[in-house]
């Protein structure tokens, strides 16, 4: 892997984008038509993540409204992660 970088003082890696979101609320899109919103407590190089104050949305073909599940603290295994995004207010 090589990167063409414009600023080599602050070399950024892709995972830095997740690091910046530590202690912030993010939305994580998962396999099996699920999403989780929560506060990022920790992560690793496999995108395993620990979210606090998490709300999981499970989308179903037949239902208009997704099912939701609340958890105070949840571990998300990285292999099911599709997308991670900060929540933009």
């Amino acid at each position, binding site marked *: 892997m090589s990167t*063409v970088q414009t600023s080599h003082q602050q070399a*950024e890696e892709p995972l*830095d984008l997740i690091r*910046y979101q530590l*202690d*912030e609320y993010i939305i994580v899109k998962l396999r099996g038509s699920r999403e989780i919103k929560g506060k990022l407590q920790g992560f690793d190089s496999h995108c395993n993540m620990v979210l606090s104050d998490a709300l999981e949305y499970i989308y179903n073909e037949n239902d208009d409204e997704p099912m939701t599940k609340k958890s105070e603290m949840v571990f998300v295994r990285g292999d099911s992660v599709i997308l991670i995004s900060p929540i933009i207010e």
Partner: protein
Amino acid sequence: MSFFGFDPTGPPNSRGKNGGEDNEVYDFENTYDGLGEIEEDDAFNDETFNTNVNEIKKDYDFGQGSNTKQQYQQASIPAPTSISYAQAAVSGPVNDDEFMQDLWGSSNTPSLQQEDSKQERKILSLEEIEAQLTAIDQGQQQQQQFPPQLYGIPGMIPPPPQFGGYMMPGFMPPQYGFPAGMIPQQIPIQQQQQQNNQPPQQEQPLPQEQVQPQPEIKQEAEESVLVEVNPASIVSPKQTAPKPVTHKVDLSNFPVLGSKEAVQQQQLHQHQLQLQAQLNEQQQQQQQQQHSHHHHHHRQPSVELTPEQQEKAARRQEKVSRIMKYSGIMNPKDKDFVTRFQLSQIVTDDPYNEDFYAQVFKVIHPKVNGVPPSSNQSGSVASGGESQQNNSIAQAYLDHSGHRLGGRYKRADVALQRMQQQVQKAVTVAKERPKLTQFAKEGALGKISFSSGKKPRQQLEIISKAAERQKEQNETKKKEGTKRYSKKDILSILENIISELMNVESESRTSTEVDTTKLWESLKVLKQPSSSGDEESEVNPFIQCLNYNKMLKILSRLFKFLTREQILTITTLIMSNLENLSVIKYGSYTTYSDNKIPEKINKLVEAYSLTFTKILMNSVLDFKFNEISGLLYILNGHNNSAFISTTKIGLSILTTLLSRAELIIGEGQISATDLSEWSSCYDELFTSLESRIAAIFPPNFDKIDDGSSKENYIWQFLATLSLGGKLSHQRIIVDEVRDEIFSVMNRVKSIDNSDLQNLYKKQNLLNNLNMYLVVMGLVADENEIKELQQ
């Protein structure tokens, strides 16, 4: 055969069931072009490959012979026509040549064998092979059964068959630890065995023969060997044709596949016994081989296995040879290298930073691997602690990797010891390893970056010249104006601060002198001056960072490493930027139409009062009087004090500064000039607050503060403000907050004394109110406000 355990000797169709389609899409063979080319005129090709160069395909099997599959098949078939020596004596061939032919089978001469194997691959069915096999006598079978033995003995060099061992020294990889003389020593013994075995048959005359003329070079190369090997060739030196056959005999003298001796030797070898011991053992081994050799001879005629048993045995045979195929191909040094390589990804010379939780766990649970904590534990003896750490790494590695010798099974001690050495080596290497993560080689276009367990991927980093130039231009441009920070920029700065802080913290664990300049730079306090009211993205990055909860969490840790001057600088910056803090900016009820502060801001305000306010209070203790008045002056000058006073955090900042100033004045050591400066500063503040003091009470204050909490920041502020002011100031304040005072009195009266559950609320309300009233010499009880009795 490929290196990946994939069997290319199978029919092409079975390799890829999609057949031609696959071939068209990609062809691995093509991708090898030019790489696997054999130098056709290399004189040693024959020795290297044990076959004609033309026969060597790109799938040459270095593990064993090129016709494994056939061997498995052959191995699975017991020889029904095996002839005992006695039988051979009766009906055997009549002359030497034919005898050899008979003994080793017609397919044994190299050229014939090659042809055969070619044909077999394409044409022969299983039955045909079977039929062919029945023509080969048992000696031949034995050879073919056990070629994988070649690699069965680690530390023992399989002589390339055509050399009969004599040319070996040149080929021997030195790391096997055998002196060059060793091999020749053992060969004669084997040959003697052969001679012992052969005589009964040699008496037999051979009948008719089909001798293929051999390539000249081979004949000569082999002749020297054969002189000793085969008495038959001494008798008739010109009849060299069947000679190549004899090399095969050597093979059969290697130990039987997977035999105990092989394993034993492997283990012994790992223990690195002396050469002498190895020599002894090999001799012993050869005896054992001889034994097993005979054993085969005797057993075979009596073998009458059912088809199932045969199949079972064949499957077992195949499995064993598959397992043993490459065994011994790595010598102990290779293995050490691989383990060290793997360990180097695990070990670190900075465990406190990289394995923080493991270290903490160890402190909490000092009993590791059943080793009771020693008296000098917790690393008081550095070397002791280190070796114990190495021990635990090695133990964990062995347990985890399912090492054959490791874990809690047998030989754990030896393995553990070895592993500890490996860990030690790996740690040394890790220490010596350059700390920089990349390395620009002179003249290279990119930088080579070192990967580690943490950053496994990135190999090359290319810095485009154009991009660099553009970046420089951008920077110079930005220096003229003010930089706008995106949210990502701020978060990146913040994370940078955190990692710098962690660096400093870990440094402080080992030494008392800590260099905090990098930490200070990372704060970017002096990066960009700004003052309240600037556009949000152009505000000083440090101030922007203060809008994030995580920054507040590290503040107290951060301030530990800053000097008084640095803290003063930061405080000054904050005072001039108060309205840029979102707790202030969005923290006032006056900006919301429903007078309600959003939940999110409330949480942040909560976090501020737990962290920032306390830190500020501690810092202010160190400030001199004139510095405090200066801060207040800056606060009042850069911000709208009336607005700030409507926020909880703003009000507590004001309280902090005012009360500290009052305390210093109370000590009575302030010069007159300082004092007059202060009073002018106070006047200024008061003027901006005047007529708006009532606004510090949120509109629904009576509902929020029902006395259940001890929250009293508003009364505290009023008390402090009154304390610093003259009588005229106090009168104005009382005038403005009179309504609130009476509203509190009403609430106090409304709580009945018999209502025990709410009595504490009454007390809280009165206490908070009195905090303010006492300053003016008044006191309130549940009925009235009266003058304080001196």
